[in-house]
C-alpha cells in the first residue's frame, strides 16, 4: 500500500466535483425565483414546486411510470433470480453463450432494442403504449438484476439446500425456508435498482409509449418550452432525491449479511 499522494488526492476530489456539481444545479435552480437558469440567483421561492404539483398530466405520467416500474422490476428480478441460480450453482455446456445472450440487452445501444421492439409490435398490429414499454424494460433490467443476484448467490453454501431436501422438505419448501431468506437482501436490492432503472429509462419509452407518457417522457416534452422549465427543475430535484435514497437503500441491503456477517446470518436461520 502506498503512503500518501496529495496530487492524486486533489485530482480525485476534483473528479468528485465534476461528477456531483452538474447534478446539484437542478435542486439549486429549482428554488431560484426566476425563469432563467443563470447567476446570480435572484431569490428563494418554493413556487416552482407548487406549480409542479398542480399539473395533472404529471400525476398521470408519474402513475404510468410507477406501474411500468413495479411490473418490470418484479418480472425481471424473478427471471434473473432463476438465471443467477443456474450460473452460480451449475457448470454446463453453453454456459458462456447463455450468459452472453442474457447480457446483450445491457450492452447494445438502447435505440436498437427500441427500434427492434417497435418493428415487431407494429407488424403484429398491436397498439403502442405502456405494454411494449414494460416489455422493453423487463428485457433491459434483467441483466442488471442478474449481475446483482449472482454476486449475492455466489459463494452461497448450497449444502444447506441439499440438507433441507434430505430432511424431507420439498423444492418449494426448501426455497421458501432456506434459499429465500438468504437471498432476500439481494432480491430486494435487485427490485429497487431495477425499479429505478425503469423509472428513469427514456429511449425505450420514447419509441414505444404512443400517447401514454411516462415521467421521463413528460419531462422531455416540457423541456422544449423555456417558460415550463422551472417546474421541470423542481420535478428533477424531487426525482434526484428520491432515486438517491432508493439507491443508497439498495446498496446497504446488498452488502447486508455479506462477508463476516454471512455465517451469523446462516446460523440465525437454523435457530
Amino acid at each position, binding site marked *: *500500500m*502506498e503512503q*500518501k499522494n496529495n496530487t492524486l488526492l486533489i485530482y*480525485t476530489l476534483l*473528479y*468528485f466535483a465534476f*461528477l*456531483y456539481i*452538474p447534478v446539484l*444545479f*437542478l435542486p439549486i*435552480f429549482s428554488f431560484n425565483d426566476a425563469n432563467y*437558469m*443563470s*447567476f446570480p440567483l435572484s431569490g428563494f421561492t418554493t413556487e416552482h414546486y407548487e406549480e409542479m404539483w398542480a399539473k395533472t398530466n404529471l400525476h398521470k405520467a408519474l402513475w404510468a411510470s410507477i406501474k411500468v416500474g413495479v411490473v418490470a422490476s418484479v418480472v425481471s428480478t424473478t*427471471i*434473473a433470480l*432463476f*438465471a443467477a*441460480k*443456474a450460473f452460480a*450453482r*451449475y457448470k*454446463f*455446456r453453453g*454456459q458462456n453463450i*447463455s450468459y452472453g*445472450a*442474457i447480457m*446483450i*440487452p445491457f*450492452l*447494445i*445501444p*438502447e*435505440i*436498437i432494442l427500441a*427500434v*427492434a421492439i417497435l*418493428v*415487431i409490435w407494429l*407488424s403484429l398490429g398491436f397498439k403502442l403504449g405502456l405494454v411494449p414499454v414494460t416489455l422493453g424494460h423487463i*428485457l433491459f433490467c434483467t441483466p442488471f438484476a*442478474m449481475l446483482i443476484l449472482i454476486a449475492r448467490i455466489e459463494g452461497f453454501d448450497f449444502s444447506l439446500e441439499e440438507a433441507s431436501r434430505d430432511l424431507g422438505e420439498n423444492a418449494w419448501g426448501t426455497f421458501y425456508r432456506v434459499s429465500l431468506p438468504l437471498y432476500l437482501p439481494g432480491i430486494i436490492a435487485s427490485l429497487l*435498482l431495477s425499479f*429505478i432503472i425503469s*423509472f*428513469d429509462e*427514456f429511449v425505450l419509452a420514447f*419509441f414505444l409509449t404512443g400517447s401514454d407518457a411516462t415521467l*421521463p417522457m413528460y*419531462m422531455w416534452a416540457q*423541456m422544449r418550452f423555456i417558460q415550463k422549465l422551472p417546474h421541470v427543475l423542481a420535478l*428533477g430535484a424531487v*426525482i*434526484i432525491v428520491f*432515486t*438517491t435514497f432508493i*439507491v443508497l437503500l439498495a446498496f446497504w441491503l446488498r*452488502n447486508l449479511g455479506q462477508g463476516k456477517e454471512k455465517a451469523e446470518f446462516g446460523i440465525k436461520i437454523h435457530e
Partner: protein
Amino acid sequence: MLQVWKSFYARSDPAKAYSLLSPALILVTLAMLIPLGLMLSFSFFTQVSFTEIDYSFTVQRYIDFFQKNLLVSLLIKSVKISFIVTFVTLLTAYPVCYYIAFYVKKNKMLWLVLLTLPFWTSYLLRVFSWKIILGTKGVINSSLINAGLLSEPLTFLMYSETAVIITLTHAWAAFALLPLYVSLDKIDFSLIEAARDLGLSRLETFWKITLPLSLPGIIGAILIIFIPTVGDYVTPALLGGTDGRMLSNMIQAYFGKVNNLPLGAASATIMLITVAIVTIIVSYTTKKLTQRIS
C-alpha cells in the same frame, strides 16, 4: 416413464441449469432476437407510401445509406465522438481508480458507492443539467458575463460536438470507474514493491507492471462505454444542435416524422454491425497484447 425422467433430471446438472435459465432465454429470444431478426428483414423492404411497405427483397436501402453523404458522415461522426468520449473517460477516471485502489486504506466501498451514485440519477436529468451549465444564458456564460470577463455569451459551448463530448464523458463515467477499479484492486501490491526494489522508477513500474496488469479493466471499460455511446440519442438531441447530431437522431427520424422504416432499419443494422466490428477488433487486440505480456 415419469420416474425415469425424474431420476435423470435429479442427476443431470445441465437439465437443471437450463430449466432455471429457460425464462431468461425465452425472454431474450422473444423480446430481442426475433425482433432483431424482423428489424433485419425490414431493412430489405421498400417504403412505397406513408403507410405502405413493399415486402419484396432488395438491398437498395443499404445502397441508399452509403449514397447519402449525410448518413455516412453521421455514422463516422458517431464513431468518432464515441472514441473521443471513451478515451477521455478512461484517461480521467484511471487516476481516480488508482488512488482508491492503492492509497485509500479504509472504507473503499464507500468511495466507490459515492463515485457511482450520480450515475443512478436519471440520465435525462444529467444531460439536462449540462444544458443548464453550457446554455447561452447558462451557468458558465452568465457567471463570466457577470464577472465582466465576457460581453457576449460563448455560443460554441452549446449545440456543438464539444457539448456532446463533455456531457457523454460525465454521463458514462461510472462505466469506466467500476471495471478500472476492479482490475487495479486485484493487483498484488508486492509486485509493484518488488519492481521498485529492483531499481525501476515509479514511471517504469507503472508502464511495465501496473498498466499491463490493469489491461482487462481498460478493455472492459472501452467496450461498455463505446458500444452504448455510438447509439446515444438523448445527448445529441438535447445538446448537439446540427453540429453534434449523431446517427441515432436520423434513425429516430426515419421511424418518426420521415417515416421510412426500411431505411431506419438498415441504419440501425449498420450501427449494430459497426459495434460488432469494434468489439471484435478490441477483443482480438487484447488477446494479442495479453499473450505478448505473459
